[in-house]
């Protein structure tokens, strides 16, 4: 089976079926997957927790639940506890009778069943549902150098870039399988060579670039390659809570508009601070981002609404989930916007999304009541899962998330534009 990859005696024994047929198939899957990318060995997963992309009991994914049942029946539970992406439904988020009918009868009919499966397989907490699992409040924050078996593109790119952990862009199921056997194939972003930058991105803007727009521009340019970003440190300063929030949104855009799994920001991210331009490969290409380039990218987004002048019916902020710092800052921004427009409540139904643990901490601050007074709804939902309902897809929804724009019919606006839309009304 495995001619190219060197396995330890223990790994070979699992592959040979000494721990049962199911575990043998799990190992075979990982070995074959790794060999496609030239992996030389299987290395131990060293993080405390795993993170899974599949959080939704979508009827269409029946075969996945059957596979998970097989793992449970064979006692092949995860060796690590794990968090998972956000839940798909929240009754606090506005939806019509028909939308709810589709959600409950055609889409997420397996939600309760699937959450039970996750509990059996090792969910770290009954509310450990968020794409931003690395937030301090959630507690799934890997250390620099940790080897992960995570999926969820925005979480993987954050863990690699901002935390200095090592993880490939794994698919759902592969993520869990790494945890089940405790090993992942050693290739790509797990290796020093794979973490070298093949692009140098020079930031030459006249103001701090919009995180979601810059990430989109870089993602579309470098696709799956690793960029080394120069000139962004002058706008970010140090890696404080504000910079981490910026990089969360920036990274999610690079990963969804392209397929970036790791970026280095000179003077900011841990490997760039430690190794500097040693991280840049010899023949690296150069991409210059200035104001005109960001405008070009912004203007290139297709608007897929049937009625392009429709008045927005809903606004989503928080894909990926918002940080505590973001919830606080945005409470103040919305208050200021409403004061300027002379209004008491937001003029478009607006949903801010965050991890349950972040919401809990936010609700212990005075800002929670202030946000509530503005009419903004706070939810733990996954906006993507909401938008995947075909009836939601026909709604004019606006967002400042470039990930949500990419995967759904939502229209993208910059943060400043969103603020105008929800506090003054745009159309």
């Amino acid at each position, binding site marked *: 089976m495995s001619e190219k990859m060197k396995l330890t005696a223990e790994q070979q024994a699992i592959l040979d079926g000494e721990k049962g047929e199911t575990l043998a*198939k799990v190992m*075979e*899957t990982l070995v*074959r*997957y790794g060999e*496609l*990318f030239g992996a030389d060995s299987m290395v131990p997963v060293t993080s405390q927790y795993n993170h899974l*992309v*599949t959080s939704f009991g*979508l*009827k*269409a*994914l*029946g*075969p*996945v639940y059957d*596979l998970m049942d097989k793992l449970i029946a064979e006692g092949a539970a995860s060796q690590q506890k794990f968090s998972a992406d956000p839940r798909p439904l929240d009754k606090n988020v506005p939806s019509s009778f028909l939308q709810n009918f589709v959600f409950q009868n*055609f*889409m997420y009919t397996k939600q309760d069943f699937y959450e039970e499966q996750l509990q059996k397989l090792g969910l770290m907490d009954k509310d450990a549902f968020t794409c931003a699992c690395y937030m301090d409040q959630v507690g799934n924050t890997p250390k620099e150098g940790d080897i992960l078996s995570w*999926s*969820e*593109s925005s979480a*993987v790119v954050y863990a690699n870039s901002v935390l200095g952990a090592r993880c*490939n*862009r*794994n*698919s*759902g*199921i*592969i*993520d869990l399988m790494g945890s089940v056997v405790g090993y992942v194939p050693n290739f*790509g972003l797990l290796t020093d060579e794979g973490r070298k930058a093949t692009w140098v991105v020079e930031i030459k803007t006249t103001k701090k670039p919009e995180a979601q727009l810059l990430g989109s521009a870089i993602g579309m340019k470098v696709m*799956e390659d690793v960029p080394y970003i120069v000139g962004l440190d002058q706008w970010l300063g140090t890696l404080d809570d504000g910079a981490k929030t910026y990089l969360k949104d920036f990274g999610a855009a690079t990963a*969804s508009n*392209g*397929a970036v799994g790791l970026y280095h920001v000179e003077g900011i991210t841990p490997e760039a601070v430690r190794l500097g331009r040693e991280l840049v490969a010899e023949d690296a290409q150069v991409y210059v981002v200035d104001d005109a380039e960001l405008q070009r990218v912004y203007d290139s987004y*297709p608007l*897929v609404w049937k009625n392009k002048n429709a008045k927005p019916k809903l606004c989503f902020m928080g894909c990926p989930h918002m940080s505590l710092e973001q919830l606080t800052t945005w409470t103040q921004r919305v208050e200021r916007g409403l004061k300027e427009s002379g209004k008491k409540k937001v003029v478009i139904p607006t949903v801010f999304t965050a991890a349950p643990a972040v919401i809990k901490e936010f609700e212990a601050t005075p800002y929670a009541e202030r946000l509530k007074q503005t009419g903004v709804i706070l939810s733990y939902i996954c906006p*993507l899962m909401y938008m*995947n309902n*075909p009836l939601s897809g026909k709604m004019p929804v606006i967002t400042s998330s470039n990930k949500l724009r*990419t*995967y759904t*019919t939502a229209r993208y606006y910059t943060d400043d534009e969103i603020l105008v839309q929800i506090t003054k009304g745009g159309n």
Partner: protein
Amino acid sequence: MREFQGRVVSPGKLTAKALVSHGGLNTLASFQKALQFGDKKATCGDQNNPDLYGKEMAGKALCLPRTIGSTTGGLVLYCACSMGRQPACLLFSEPIDSLAAAGAVLADVWLEGDHTSMPVVDSLGEEFLNYVQDGMTINVLPDGRVQII
């Protein structure tokens, strides 16, 4: 006839009509509707892909550079295979990406029966994607050769 040599990811032999995407295939966006609402022809639901949007993918030789998008991509392909709604094969011009690789390997290792089969060949080269067009007849051979008739 033109022949291209690629690398075998999942082996197989078949003949099918080509369906070509010049941009990356967003797996979740393309297949979700089909899996959700029982569309056995797997009509592509990705509005951002002008080459594929609205076209039937099941049973076609899907020619593409790579897959893109959500890391659910691999399990979506696995589900499409399990339900018999997968393309006849995936033919990549570039080396396969980690999400499509996961889908191909998961289907090959965990599913049984001809109706779940989805041979995959990668690294066919840019010229392959420049040459192949919708509706052309494709022969895939077990050694990774792809013939376009």
